[in-house]
């Protein structure tokens, strides 16, 4: 009796172990497949609801502007689920691996402008050609060109763009004895970022204590480069960053900033940068449309009415996104319809009203209404007008597959070494060079 109970107990344990193991294995089997089972529960159309998933990063504004709810009301057989990944640098590698595995992708995937060329050049066969489905003339030419392959396949529809302006602190400008009127200011630096930097030298002569002219040299670099047609690659996909006129001009502007003590030496999107807004430690920042909300949030009530907006020296773009429909998705027809609807001018205008993400479809520009709070926060500046003017004149830019890591190498290694480690511009350039060599695997 004793032995038999012991054995049965042991067998019981064995069974439990076996159950656990199979459970675990079943768990992984489910896991690697979860995306498709997610979208599969709608059950191939026909009867019941179709669930569409939208993969995004950061705050896209669709949910915030109530677009999903609106679409679901218009199409009672569709339900929409958004899968948000907060950080782009996590989102994109994950999306790339899923695209190539052909499973686990969402029905609609967002693509950031920094990754669009890589997607166009290496993942085009993994996306539906949306160019056939829409009226392409709705979009700004340069925006459409970014998502179109050489043989004319459009893999993503433009959502927002990042036309640039200069946000400046009127009160600090006044104290430093500078012009405070936005049109006169814009005229002073029109055409060249070097003029903007020169104004910075003037600002520093009588700068209110504890303040600098800009937040960082890198932001000036990014802003200036955003208006140049020649960046890191030529049209044939060769890396030309060290010969590029655009890079050279922007680098020089950034170097003037870095070596003349007019920068608060902050790194954008770091917690310390946020503090800089709150403390008012810099007087200007190059602000793409999507940054307006950020400034408002970080500067808080204390900054209300002190900020103003003027046109940037050159029309420039910084950021923006696309949405594409992966061919691996189970409900392509429904996904295409949703993507078309989400990127239509009316919907883009709604997102702008809520989130200040600037539309990539000019048809929306006449009906744009920024939130009343935003307008009064920025001293009643004609924000829509300024950004729309910029958006229409941004040049077509050539991008390459490793734009993002090359850009990071220049700003976060090259420029940062000059700005924060006191290296010479030449040393900074060489450091960036070594870094880019590493990036390109040479």
């Amino acid at each position, binding site marked *: 009796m*004793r*032995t038999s109970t*012991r*054995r049965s107990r*042991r067998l019981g*344990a*064995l069974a439990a*172990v*076996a159950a*656990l*193991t199979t459970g*675990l*294995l079943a768990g*992984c089997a489910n896991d690697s497949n979860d995306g498709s089972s997610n979208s599969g529960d709608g059950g191939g159309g026909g009867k019941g609801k179709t669930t569409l998933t939208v993969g995004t990063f950061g705050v896209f504004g669709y949910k915030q502007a109530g677009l999903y709810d609106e679409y679901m009301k218009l199409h009672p057989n569709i339900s929409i689920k958004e899968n948000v990944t907060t950080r782009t*640098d996590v989102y994109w*590698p994950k999306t*790339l*691996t899923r695209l*190539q*595995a052909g499973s686990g992708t969402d029905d609609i995937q967002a693509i950031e402008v920094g990754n669009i060329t*890589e997607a166009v050049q*290496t*993942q085009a066969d993994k996306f539906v050609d949306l160019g056939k489905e829409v009226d392409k003339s709705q979009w700004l030419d340069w925006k459409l060109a970014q998502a179109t392959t050489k043989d004319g396949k459009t893999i993503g529809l433009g959502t927002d763009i990042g036309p640039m302006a200069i946000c400046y602190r009127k009160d600090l400008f006044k104290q430093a004895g500078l012009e405070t009127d936005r049109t006169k200011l814009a005229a002073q630096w029109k055409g060249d970022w070097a003029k903007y930097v020169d104004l910075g030298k003037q600002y520093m002569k009588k700068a209110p204590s504890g303040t600098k002219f800009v937040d960082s040299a890198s932001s000036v670099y990014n802003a200036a480069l955003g208006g140049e047609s020649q960046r890191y690659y030529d049209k044939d996909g060769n890396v030309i960053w060290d010969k590029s006129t655009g890079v050279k001009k922007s680098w020089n502007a950034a170097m003037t900033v870095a070596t003349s003590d007019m920068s*608060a*030496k*902050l*790194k*954008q*999107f*770091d*917690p*310390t940068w946020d*503090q800089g807004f709150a*403390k008012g*430690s810099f007087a200007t920042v190059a602000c793409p449309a999507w940054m307006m909300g950020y400034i408002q949030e970080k500067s808080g009530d204390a900054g209300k009415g002190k900020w103003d907006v003027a046109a940037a020296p050159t029309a420039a773009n910084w950021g923006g996104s696309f949405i594409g429909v992966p061919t691996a998705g189970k409900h392509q027809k429904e996904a295409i319809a949703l993507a078309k609807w989400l990127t239509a001018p009316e919907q883009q205008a709604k997102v702008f009203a809520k989130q200040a993400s600037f539309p990539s479809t000019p048809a929306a520009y006449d009906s744009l209404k920024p939130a009343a709070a935003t307008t009064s926060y920025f001293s009643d500046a004609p924000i829509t007008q300024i950004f729309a003017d910029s958006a229409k004149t941004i040049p077509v830019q050539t991008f390459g*597959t*490793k734009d993002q*890591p090359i850009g*990071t190498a220049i700003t*976060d*290694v090259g420029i*940062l*070494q000059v700005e*924060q*480690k006191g290296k010479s511009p030449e040393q900074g350039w060489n*450091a960036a060079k*070594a*870094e880019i060599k*590493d*990036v390109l*695997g040479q």
Partner: protein
Amino acid sequence: MTSSKEALAHTATSADAAPGSQPGAARGAQGRGTPPPGPDSWRSRLYRWDMKASPYAFVAPFFIVFGAFGLVPLLYTAWYSLHNVQLSGLDHQTWAGLDNYKNLLSSEFFWNALENTFTIGVISTVPQLLMAIGIAHLLNYRLRGSTVWRVVMLTPYATSVAAATLVFTLLYSWDGGMINWLLHFVGVDPINWRESDWGGQFAVSSIVIWRWTGYNALIYLAAMQAIPTDLYESAALDGAGRWQQFRHVTIPMLRPTILFTVVVSTIGATQLFGEPLLFGGVSGSKGGSAHQYQTLGLYMYDQGWGIGNLGKASAIAWTMFLILLIVAAINLLVTRRLRKSQ
């Protein structure tokens, strides 16, 4: 001293003796019950099979999970490391042989990362363990509310890396950070902690030290409490003071525990990743503008997920694995040497 030697000798002899003697009888004697009579009966065969198989069944889940999540990725990484693979072109692999490794050995960033991993490892592990012993010694005294003290020691370990690093990043921020503010009272100019070569490493180490000291202290404390009190009593009779007791009784008795913590900390230091990544902020995977606190883990992450060179990243992963094997081997040698000398 003598008692521990005897204990060691005892375990050694019993372990040595086990394979020589009759295993069935020995095990039976050790409380599994005597096997039922009748050598060829069905029950006895089942019993014997049960005896042999069930231990394997019990340990199997670990090995199955390890195989799926440890071994397969390890081998797959080895395969990747011999190819040119881009994150955006997983299906376009081209054979590269040992190119990735050669590339790595000639890369200044790799050597820099290796050096950083070592220096950060040393400046975080050594003070950490020394402080942990000291704290454990203090906690070992009779204290009022000793449980409270012990729990407090463990709280840094319980906080997440992300939260701890965020706070430290603010403390170390060069403009308006608390540390520079305190330094200004003693007349030191503000230090740009994140971008200075030593400042960054120091700051990262301080986060590691803050998080792990209490954890190690509790391990030491547990070991200290297992030291028989009569050793201290006889030492006191021989006229040894507190400090002498600590040096001549506590430390030697703690030796195996110290070795254990050194091994664990070394492995942790070799894999250091979260703290420098988050401390670096937006482009943290570079480990500062001059890679001044880029560890091997960060370099691998930057190559693989920042830049997309999966082949090279895999080569780094395997190199790290080999380095860990070497570290483990050195530890083993040292342990043996110490055991013999004891």
